[in-house]
């Protein structure tokens, strides 16, 4: 009997000790616990992109003895940017991160990123000349380089070569006939429709998807040789070009040549299944189509407006240095080295559809031999990034507002004119409510 109280007491002691040690252990997982030869790299590549990124990082890692590049993979979208911002604001930033070029303007001016040092980059063979002009230009904020692009990914037209051949649409070089107007495009769509007997000839998924709507719009709009200005007090845009671009999109999704109610997945599955012959989508869709062994061709989106301006929507995954108050010089050096190794080994990344940003890779015979990648690689030289601002870019409010106002014009619920006016008003609100820095 006398044993009972003792046992109870000791059990309590054990629990107390366990609880205390758990608390202490919980406090120990700060940056201090990292080894100096480990660099932490945050990115947002999942699925096929994730596998390829892992392969490239593993290769770079193998080239760097005694160093471990630790990947932290987070889901794409607004939450990724939140986490990156919080980690930098909280002083526990990773050594290396990835952000979309289009989000750079929201990050760099706030002091959340550290600039890249050009002299140090030069030692690793990275300089202005190793990138295309639009990419390098967009990497600079307030005179400093904050982003090193890994790739450029643009909006292009994929087509089914087998179907096109069956319909006698291809020329001797395996290319589709030149498209110079919306009528040309719709005629081609109707040809494909005849060949497959499907409801539509062209796939363009946009329903509920601000990003997809924006990508085609921005392609059409910038083909007018104009842009958006979000730097002043009010939103400045070219109303005629805006209206014509949306009108063209609306006319394309007429419910005959292309669906006026298909979302991304639906449109993609039609093209994949050979129901439609042509698809407007991002180059990142390439591996999915190739894995399905479909006969695939691709080309830049043609200019439909007779302006002779080559342009398309595009974005880049870029390497950034999240701000650290007292960066460890050794680790920072390793970050430079790791990025240079990843850029130089970015050919497999190109196989995923993205065009490598590092020009020496693009100029290799191996990349030139990649089809249809090389057929649209030229878009990297003339792509247009989103207009820079704290509220624009990948997964931004701007994208939401674009969908909110413009989609109704495509589905026929409002007129193009009203949709454009609504959007302009919303952008003015976004500008007036934008963060002040």
């Amino acid at each position: 009997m006398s044993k009972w109280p003792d046992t109870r007491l000791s059990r309590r002691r054990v629990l107390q000790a366990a609880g205390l040690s758990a608390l202490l252990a919980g406090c120990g997982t700060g940056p201090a616990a990292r080894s100096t030869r480990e660099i932490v790299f945050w990115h947002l590549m999942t699925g096929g992109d994730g596998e390829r990124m892992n392969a490239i990082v593993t290769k770079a890692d193998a080239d760097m003895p005694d160093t471990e590049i630790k990947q932290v993979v987070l889901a794409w979208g607004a939450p990724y940017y939140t986490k990156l911002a919080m980690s930098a604001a909280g002083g526990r930033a990773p050594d290396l991160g990835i952000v979309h070029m289009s989000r750079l303007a929201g990050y760099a001016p706030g002091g959340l990123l550290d600039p890249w040092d050009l002299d140090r980059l030069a030692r690793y063979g990275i300089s202005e000349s190793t990138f295309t002009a639009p990419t390098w230009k967009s990497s600079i904020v307030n005179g400093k380089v904050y982003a090193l692009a890994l790739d450029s990914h643009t909006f292009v037209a994929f087509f089914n070569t087998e179907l096109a051949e069956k319909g006698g649409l291809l020329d001797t070089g395996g290319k589709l006939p030149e498209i110079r107007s919306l009528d040309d495009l719709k005629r081609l769509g109707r040809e494909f429709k005849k060949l497959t007997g499907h409801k539509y000839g062209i796939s363009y998924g946009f329903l509920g998807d601000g990003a997809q709507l924006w990508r085609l719009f921005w392609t059409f709009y910038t083909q007018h040789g104009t842009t958006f200005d979000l730097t002043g007090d009010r939103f400045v845009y070219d109303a005629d070009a805006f209206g014509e671009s949306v009108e063209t999109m609306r006319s394309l999704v007429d419910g005959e040549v292309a669906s006026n109610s298909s979302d991304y997945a639906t449109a993609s599955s039609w093209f994949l299944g050979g129901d439609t012959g042509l698809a407007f989508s991002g180059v990142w869709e390439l591996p999915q189509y190739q894995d399905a062994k479909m006969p695939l061709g691709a080309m830049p989106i043609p200019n439909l407006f007779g302006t002779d301006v080559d342009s398309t929507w595009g974005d880049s995954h870029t390497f950034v240095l999240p701000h650290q108050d007292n960066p460890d010089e050794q680790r920072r050096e390793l970050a430079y080295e790791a990025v240079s190794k990843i850029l130089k080994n970015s050919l497999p990344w190109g196989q995923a559809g993205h065009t490598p940003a590092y020009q020496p890779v693009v100029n290799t015979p191996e990349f030139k031999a990649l089809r249809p990648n090389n057929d649209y690689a030229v878009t990297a030289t003339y792509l247009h990034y989103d207009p820079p601002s704290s509220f624009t870019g990948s997964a931004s409010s701007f994208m939401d507002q674009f969908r909110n106002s413009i989609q109704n014009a495509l589905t026929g619920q409002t007129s193009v004119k009203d949709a454009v006016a609504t959007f302009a008003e919303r952008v003015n609100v976004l500008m007036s409510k934008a963060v002040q820095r």
Partner: protein
Amino acid sequence: MTSATLTNKGATTKAVTTRPKALRSQSGLLYVLPFFVTFVLFLLWPLIYGIWMSFTDRDLAAGAEPELVGFANYAEALTDPMVWTTFGNTVLFTVMTTIPLVVLALAAALLVNMGLPGQWVWRMAFFVPYLLASTVVSLFWEWLYNPELGLINSVLGVFGIEGRSWLQDPDFAMAAIAVATTWWTLGFNFLLYLAALQNIPSTVYEAASIDGAGRWRQLFSITLPLLRNITMLILVLQVLASLKVFDQIFQMTAGGPDDSTRSILMYVYDTGFTNYRLGYASAISYIFFAIILILSLLQLRFARRSDQS
């Protein structure tokens, strides 16, 4: 055997009661500590920190220290039309979901309680959706609602009715989300009702049938009045849950089309996390908090008064 157990129990009780009172309350505190620490860290502190933030221009993506701006954020929020649009949407969603989630849950519970054979199957069928993650529910319903490939429009097509883009039509999107939400969360209220129904003593019904009351009479004069308390509870829980709506809208429509499904919490999220204005976002959430608080107090008062009458 029995007596031995009894003695043992008595001894234990005695041992506990004779321990000094101070020691007992000390160990009591120890038990509360884990919760208390979590409560302070994740509820109390953020609450206080949030109030402070709402008076500053705190920027999510800036290293610089935030500056105090007084009531500027509150003034801006009260005149921001989007605050009121999204608040209106939230109230609309709350009405659209609370009514069916009370009425249908009660109906389902009454049906199951009728003593149908295989009661567990019905119970499970109504309750299982509640166990799904919001992501699963969203994907599931997005496919059902898909205008080109979805089941709903296919079935409507069989009857010659042309479907719509349910989630992308400003007139239908909120209702579509409310339907999905009702299907998803009905099970919880259903279970509460079922438990309450099974708690009503059968003797009451026996007495009623001896007095010659039919089934409908019993329903309206016994069952429903005896469910009054649980209905009040369900109503309060449901209104609070619906006002907090975020997940399924974020995933199914992201607030579109034309902001017709954007809830106030989504606006707070967009303002704070996507557009970096944490200070302003905090001010909006405290205004929302105040409105909920006032509504809850009114509801409580109303409930008390009808109790007395």
